[in-house]
């Protein structure tokens, strides 16, 4: 049997009926801890004298094994995503492992940007930056008639500290040609004390140089740990010590063909399965009861 676990009572508050009837729940997404409504309000609110012009935001979210970059705008009936890129698409472009590191998030941001610009025909007008990736770059309107695509970074609930991956995605998008207002203050390689930005460090991070260095070190000193730590890399035949060159190729591949291949929607095997059991009719219930009584009588 086992001891019945005692239900832990709330230490701070007695949940009387008065409490229950007066308690005001927070918004659903706030209860889930997924949305910061203060930030959302400020990101969404468009100047009223711009009427229905959408206010696009570049959304970056991280899961345990994936990076999501989307360009979204809000409407009364819900948010609309106009472009999305996931780091689990990177194997297609040559990056087989390490899909949540700094380099991968940069690549995902780059992919999202190029995809969006290709979709709206701005890809040739706004190429972004292919070299000197560590340098501070802001998209400028060239001789083209179309202005650059402007959106605003939506970090979500991430702590925006210096060197955070969120800003890698931002850098990827900006180098891809999106106009996102930003400051170099939060990029990897920024010295908070000197208040100076080191473009070489940033470029190293973007290309995964830090990972490569770590891998090399580990390979030389602790080869068993190396096998274990970079197991996924080795399984995919993706050398972590050569990450920088590999990433350069990945960025090139992304620029070459950023379009998303739509997968055909296939109906699952048990499509149309009804999860809600139909209620028994009155006759069925009566028959059921009869059968039960017979069984009891027979047993007795």
């Amino acid at each position, binding site marked *: 049997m086992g001891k019945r676990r005692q239900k832990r009572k709330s230490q701070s508050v007695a949940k009387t009926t008065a409490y229950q009837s007066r308690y005001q729940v927070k918004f659903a997404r*706030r209860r889930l801890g997924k949305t910061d409504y203060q930030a959302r309000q400020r990101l969404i609110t468009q100047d009223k004298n711009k009427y229905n012009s959408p206010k696009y935001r570049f959304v970056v979210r991280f899961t345990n094994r994936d990076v999501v970059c989307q360009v979204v705008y*809000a409407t009364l009936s819900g948010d609309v995503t106009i472009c999305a890129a996931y780091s689990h698409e990177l194997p297609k472009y040559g990056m087989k492992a390490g899909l949540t590191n700094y380099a991968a998030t940069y690549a995902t941001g780059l992919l999202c940007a190029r995809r969006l610009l290709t979709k709206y025909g701005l890809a040739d007008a706004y190429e972004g930056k292919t070299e000197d990736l560590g340098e501070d770059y802001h998209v400028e309107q060239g001789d083209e008639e179309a202005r650059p695509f402007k959106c605003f970074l939506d970090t979500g609930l991430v702590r925006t500290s210096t060197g955070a991956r969120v800003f890698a995605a931002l850098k990827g998008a900006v180098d891809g040609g999106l106009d996102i207002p930003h400051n170099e203050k939060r990029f990897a390689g920024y010295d908070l004390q000197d208040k100076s930005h080191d473009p070489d460090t940033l470029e190293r991070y973007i290309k995964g140089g830090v990972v490569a260095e770590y891998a090399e070190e580990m390979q030389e000193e602790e080869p068993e740990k190396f096998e274990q730590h970079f197991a996924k890399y080795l399984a995919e035949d993706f050398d972590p010590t050569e990450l920088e060159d590999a990433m350069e190729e990945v960025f090139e591949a992304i620029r070459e063909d950023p379009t998303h291949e739509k997968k055909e929607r296939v109906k699952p095997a048990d499509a149309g399965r009804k999860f809600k059991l139909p209620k028994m009719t009155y006759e069925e219930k009566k028959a059921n009861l009869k059968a039960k009584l017979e069984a009891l009588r027979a047993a007795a």
Partner: protein
Amino acid sequence: MALRWTRDRRCGRRATRERWKRFCSRSGGTELDGARTRRLTWTFFPNSQMGNQRARSRGLRHGTRNLFSRGHREHGTLNTTTYLRTFRVGDYVDIKVNSAQQKGMPYLQYQGRTGQVWNVTPRAVGVEINKQIGGRIARKRIHVRIEHVQHSRCREDFIARREANDKAHHEAHLAGKKITTKREVTGQPRTGFTLENVKSELLTPIPYDILREGMKY
């Protein structure tokens, strides 16, 4: 309006009016000549007889304890749809103060009023409201933040009816028929109910005829 707890019974608007009438009848009829009126008026309205004017506050949000309070379990962050609505010049809007946003609040007198948008700024709209001041109605133009403004449904019924009528007229025109879409007074209450044994009379004012009325004085 907020209840007024401490009010001397002599100081109410009606009470004052009654007193003025009695005062006038005492001092020789309703017609007072100019100078005498002015002198006597000031004896009638010395400060102390108007009650303690100081007892009432006149701050910006005076008397709004309940009016501006948020509803039960409606406190906290505003929903995002408040910020996603667009307003165009000419739209009818209702003013409903949302005290979760303290900026750009209209004066308490405009609570519940409906007006047309005459201006649109980044975070607010300009609303033109009819305000009764004494005997006239003035057009007041105020600016109000969008949190305190909602699209009015006052025109909804009219616009739907107009659309339906236009459509009916167009179809009739194509068919070569004539129809009237005027609303009629049926004498019946709203749909779902009927009155029986009803005799209804339509009353209209008769035109003024001076010969019939004659000179009154």
